[in-house]
């Protein structure tokens, strides 16, 4: 390495000069200038795959015909880069055309209609249909709707391998891997086991679904209930455990219909099965408790909050008087916020007088 030039590198991107640290990839240098490059395979926080080839940029006098992928190419001193030159646009159109030639175009019925990166880019680059009207459509694995929460449609897979890399490198689960070779390549769990089967080791975290750029992996709820353009988003904290994952509740016509992971400090765009698929349906559940119930003569009857709280206070006082404070134990719910949990333990310790208190997030 040339010591003389130090640790920063100067280069020109789209006519703007830019200074970056040595070792920075072109994609990040572009980002620092607010230039967003199209990509189907790039995943933040995971080593670049360089497989989709959408992020190609033109480097004047560069190797490989001067069209390297920005996600893998390191910045070099004095580089002159064009991110939307004619050659770049032609190259991206070629890639999109190829991908579309092996992609079933049933966009109307697709869960990801309106939130599909392939669709977006094809629109942006004017690839309305594939220019390969006839030709072989190699199968990309077996259709799989065995998982209760999501389904896999191989005909929409573009082999960006994001799902497999998410599973292995972000979730650490390694359920999915790449089978076969060449145009026959496909993503599947070991031995082509259905994803819904326990032996596949899929724990339904759904991070592959969140990271799929097309409708190859899609949430069953989304398919049935909503499209991306119909929902508004509300950023909030997952109600389940104490990790505090950030996500966006998706609201359609006043009803919460789904969840998208957000890039929060504790979850970095990931969720678990409870957050991704189990944190919204209960909101509108018909048997959800909305008022306190008191059991009278073996039957639950609706009561007011005053009635219910009085009854609880009376019973707790009685138990404490007859058997002592340690005869009482408190167990709070992980879905309550930290502040409520704090108050709850305070109540158990100060008002009731026992240390018998716990929270279900711990077990």
């Amino acid at each position, binding site marked *: 390495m040339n010591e003389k030039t130090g640790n920063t590198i100067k280069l020109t991107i789209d006519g703007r000069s830019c200074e970056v640290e040595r070792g920075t990839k072109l994609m990040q240098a572009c980002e620092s200038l607010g230039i967003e490059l199209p990509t189907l395979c790039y995943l933040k926080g995971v080593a670049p795959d360089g*497989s989709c*080839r959408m992020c190609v940029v033109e480097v004047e006098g560069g190797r490989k015909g001067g069209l390297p992928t920005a996600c*893998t190419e390191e910045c070099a001193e004095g580089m002159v880069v064009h991110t939307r030159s004619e050659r770049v646009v*032609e190259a991206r159109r*070629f890639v999109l055309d190829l*991908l579309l030639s092996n992609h079933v175009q049933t966009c109307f019925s697709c869960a990801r209609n309106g939130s599909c990166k392939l669709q977006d880019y094809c629109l942006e680059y004017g690839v309305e249909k594939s220019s390969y009207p006839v*030709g072989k459509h190699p199968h990309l694995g077996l259709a799989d709707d065995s998982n209760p929460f999501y389904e896999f449609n191989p005909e929409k897979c573009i082999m960006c391998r994001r799902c497999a890399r998410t599973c292995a490198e972000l979730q650490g689960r390694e359920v999915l891997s790449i089978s076969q070779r*060449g145009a026959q390549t496909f993503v599947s769990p070991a031995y082509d086991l259905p994803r819904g089967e326990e032996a596949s080791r899929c724990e339904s975290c759904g991070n592959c679904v969140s990271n799929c750029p097309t409708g190859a992996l899609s949430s069953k709820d989304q398919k049935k209930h909503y499209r991306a353009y119909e929902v508004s988003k509300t950023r909030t904290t997952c109600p389940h455990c104490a990790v505090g994952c950030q996500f966006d509740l998706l609201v359609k016509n006043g009803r919460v219909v789904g969840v998208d992971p957000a890039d929060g400090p504790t979850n970095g765009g990931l969720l678990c099965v409870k957050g991704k698929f189990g944190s919204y349906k209960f909101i509108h559940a018909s048997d959800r408790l909305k008022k306190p119930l008191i059991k009278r003569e073996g039957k639950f009857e609706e009561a007011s909050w005053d009635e219910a709280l009085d009854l609880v206070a009376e019973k707790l006082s009685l138990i404490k008087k007859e058997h002592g404070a340690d005869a009482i134990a408190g167990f709070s719910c992980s879905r309550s916020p930290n502040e409520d949990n704090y108050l709850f333990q305070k109540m158990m310790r100060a008002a009731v007088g026992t240390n018998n208190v716990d929270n279900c997030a711990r077990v």
Partner: protein
Amino acid sequence: MAEKRILLKRVGKMTDPASVEEYEALGGFASIKKAVQMEKEEILQQVDDAMLRGRGGAAYPAGRKWNHLYYNDTWPKFIVCNADEGEPGTFKDKVLLSKDPLAIIEGMLIAGYLFGSHEGFIYIRGEYHEIQQVFLKAIENATKAGYLGEKILGIEGFDYTITMVSGAGAYVCGENSALLNSVEGKTGRPRIKPPHLADVGLFKKPTLVNNVESFACIPVIMEMGGLAFREIGTEDGGGTKLVCLSGHVKNRGVYEVPLGTPLQEILYSEELGGGLSTGRPLGFIHFGGQSGPLGFPEKMEGMLYSYQDLWDHGLAIGSGAIVVMDDSVNVVDYLENVMGFFVHESCGKCTPCRLGTLRLRELLQRFQKGYAKAEDMQRLESMLTHITNLSACGLGQSVSVSVKSGLGNRRQVFEAMMG
């Protein structure tokens, strides 16, 4: 000029190719003994002087590769021999592996000594199952004789082993980074480069990857000296080259010729090719394997079989394959077949190679069937450029080479097939 056997000098002369005694009797292991007497920089200088170009196909000067690795201070370093000979029309490593395996071991051993490496690997293609057995026997014999193992030649710290790894039938594993992934037990898929393998190679350590024939050249260079080796060949590429003659040629087989031999002689001299087997005029020659270009007779007059002369003619030596086709072979039919190979062997990682090879083959089939229109010709040209520019590794980048040279020289054949 005819054959000059410096690599093949022992081939056929041993009753047991894996025998250390027979190998030694024919001059074997003299080079390692000579090398350990030399300064390490001197060994490096010899390899540099020899102007040995990588015999696997890329023709990268071995001296440059060796220097790069030598001046990397990270330890340990690994030596890997690429014996995943999968290029169609190429069968020269097979001869060395099965008939003179100890020469390869000696080459790897010299590299091991020079770089202070304790571990070498040889990755032999799975289809060479029987050759693998011969090679294993050679490793075993060399170990027994003290040429592998600990304190080799009595030198403290000169410990070196060679492990044989079998390929599993993927062409892409001949690409050196895919090969290393495969040795590591991962799926054999190319890595993103840079980093250079001499910096981050096998198990993320600096690694030398050379072809079988390149390693076999090393003892010869040590024996005769780098400059003498270069003199056998040409200024831009020293030594001899094993060529594999196949197709419509009378004497099909592996021959060793000095670099710079006239192509005419390789094809027509009775000792070598012996002319076309069909008695028809030459149609074209496919050089260097499937990823190489096609040479046409009118463009090859007086051409020497040397790296520079072939490059000057838009051709390449590549692996040393020389597939001869007579004038009865339709170039489009031939190329469709070549593309079938790439469709089968593309690893499927990047889009242009995975789907591009498939669509390219389908496009060539349109010509074959007489469906092709003027726009298909345009599309063919643009596809060739895009696939070359956009593919991630050497496999995809060279898919178009043969078709481009075919189209460039025999456009009329393509046009005659249009509907």
